[in-house]
């Protein structure tokens, strides 16, 4: 068998088609320039965990005006959103106000929402005016997301919500909420769930901040007392909520915010590092390179119509670990500002909890690993 004679000239072109060097590189450059300008103009101060704690409605409107909210449903796709969000997180820009709408609920509305709902909300989301919070977790449920007790009861032209959600970030200042509620009972807990879009100004909705380590912060409780949701604000099919939620997990877990929450601290660490720190800092640089590539792969697969749940879980598990390790290295490098370290330290307990705990992710990843071999 002489391999060289047979295969001559066959695959040189093969794996090249997916690279779109000019356009994508250009978009990153454009984003960088704009962000740098905003920084120069004092529009924001960098901080860690800015996608959750950097809440700035004006900044969100700036992004909206630039056309940078809703890229995934406006014909640009996940790869471009990946570039945009990477650069925003790198800069520690205050993107929390529109984050949930842009990442998760906007795409869900675009895919599953009624024509009326799309018309009513997508333009507002794209402008940065419509701000979503998530109503998933409930008291005492923990990782058991399916144990939903919030009920939606049929009424004229819609549904009435009763119950309570918790850990809804920024609910007290969101314009809308995504709510997972039980529309029928007596079945397996994964059945009879429905996704709703709720106007937070509707009568019977109350949001209350939960004081955390920094005082009153982003976490809220939300109470529903006969809050009305019109039929047009049902997402997808009544009763199919659980399947729809799990289908969205790749969106929720596979983004760069699962890796870059402490990047602003890493940037300060890179600036301060001396020869004695080179090894520890270099390890972070190497790992980050691989993690960002993994994130890029996830985005490309979502653009290809896949739901890469296993890869997204892998990214999140390893990314959360990286985010914490950045803090540990930063602590060891002389000259990194204490305030930046402390800010990241207080945020860190949340990294591996939000969007699925390490334990939950481990099960998802192991399942993929065994599927890959079985």
């Amino acid at each position, binding site marked *: *068998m*002489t*391999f*060289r004679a*047979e*295969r001559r*000239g*066959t*695959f*040189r072109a*093969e*794996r090249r088609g997916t*690279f779109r*060097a000019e356009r*994508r*590189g250009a978009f*990153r450059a454009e984003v960088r320039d704009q962000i740098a300008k905003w920084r120069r103009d004092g529009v924001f101060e960098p901080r860690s965990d800015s996608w959750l704690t950097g809440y700035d409605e004006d900044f969100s409107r700036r992004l909206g005006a630039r056309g940078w909210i809703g890229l995934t449903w406006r014909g640009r796709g996940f790869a471009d959103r990946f*570039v945009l969000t990477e650069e925003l997180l*790198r800069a520690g820009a205050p993107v929390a106000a529109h984050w949930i709408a842009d990442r998760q609920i906007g795409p869900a509305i675009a895919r599953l929402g009624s024509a009326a709902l799309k018309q009513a909300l997508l333009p507002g989301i794209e402008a940065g005016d419509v701000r979503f919070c998530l109503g998933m977790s409930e008291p005492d449920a923990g990782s058991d997301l399916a144990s939903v007790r919030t009920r939606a009861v049929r009424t004229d032209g819609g549904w009435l919500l009763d119950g309570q959600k918790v850990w809804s970030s920024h609910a007290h200042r969101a314009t809308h909420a995504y709510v997972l509620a039980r529309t029928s009972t007596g079945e397996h807990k994964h059945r009879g769930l429905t996704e709703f879009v709720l106007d937070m100004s509707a009568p019977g909705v109350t949001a209350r901040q939960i004081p955390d380590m920094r005082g009153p912060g982003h976490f809220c409780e939300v109470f529903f007392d006969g809050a009305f949701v019109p039929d047009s604000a049902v997402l997808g099919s009544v009763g199919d909520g659980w399947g729809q939620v799990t289908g969205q997990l790749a969106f929720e877990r596979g983004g760069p915010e699962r890796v870059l929450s402490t990047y602003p601290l*890493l940037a300060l660490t*890179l*600036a301060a*590092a*001396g*020869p004695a*720190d*080179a*090894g*520890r*800092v*270099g*390890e972070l*640089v*190497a*790992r*980050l*390179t*691989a*993690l*960002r*590539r*993994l994130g890029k*792969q996830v985005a490309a697969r979502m653009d290809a119509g896949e739901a890469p749940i296993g*890869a997204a879980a*892998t990214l999140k*598990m*390893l990314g959360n670990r990286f985010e914490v390790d950045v803090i540990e290295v930063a602590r060891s490098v002389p000259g990194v500002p204490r305030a930046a370290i402390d800010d990241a330290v207080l945020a860190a307990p949340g990294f591996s909890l939000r969007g699925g705990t390490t*334990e939950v*992710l*481990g*099960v*998802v*990843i*192991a399942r*993929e*690993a*065994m599927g*890959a*071999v*079985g």
Partner: protein
Amino acid sequence: MSMPDVEEAAVKVLGGAADMRDAARITAEQGWHLLGVPEPEGAGGTLADLTGVVRAVSAAGLSSPLPELHAPVVLSVRGQLIAPWGPAWENVNLAGEPYDIGDAPSSGAVLTRWRILHAARLVGGCQGAAARTAAYAATRVQFGRPIARFQAVSALVAEAHAQAVLAAAGLEAALADPEDDLVAVAALATASRAGTAVARVAHQVHGAIGVTQEMGLERLTRRLWAWRDLPGEAELEPLLGLLGEERAWDLGAGDE
């Protein structure tokens, strides 16, 4: 011949090699190492094609001098110059692979290509060991059920898989920018650490039987232990720690 066919052929034929000298002869005859070298001198294809072959061979628990035949280098390892597959082969590493201690330096571009291919070797070993670990956990029964059903074991299976995925992503980043010597350094450091993690977890899941020759896991893990120190992350990572934020952030962005 498609790439999967080439990979399969390489695994099959090298699996029958008597020793490293034999493997080198076969590889050279088949010209596998010329993948990624422009024709007519080479066999065409991309460096990615070549890494695919290297990975497949390593994932099967086999040794081959593919990277060295492609990019003959002499490395400085912990202060000593080491030729991984030199002509004299006076020493033997933990995996039973021969090597020399030499003194000829290699050029930067050649070294970068070798690092990418050596990373591919580690990635393949990680993938092979992770896959074996998942398969073992899914079938091995203890306390009346497959051990994968125990959360602690499942977490180990996930860890092995995740590390292999991460190392492969690092390799892809290096392939996206094969002119940048530092992405190759990053890819190799990540693969080296992944090798350590995957080998540890694989043995933990397999239990005592994992160290037996009969089980065959050690054909993968011994290679991971040998390859991860050629050189190890402790020599590579310091090269990446003082780049500054902008250069570090742009690592691996070559295909954008």
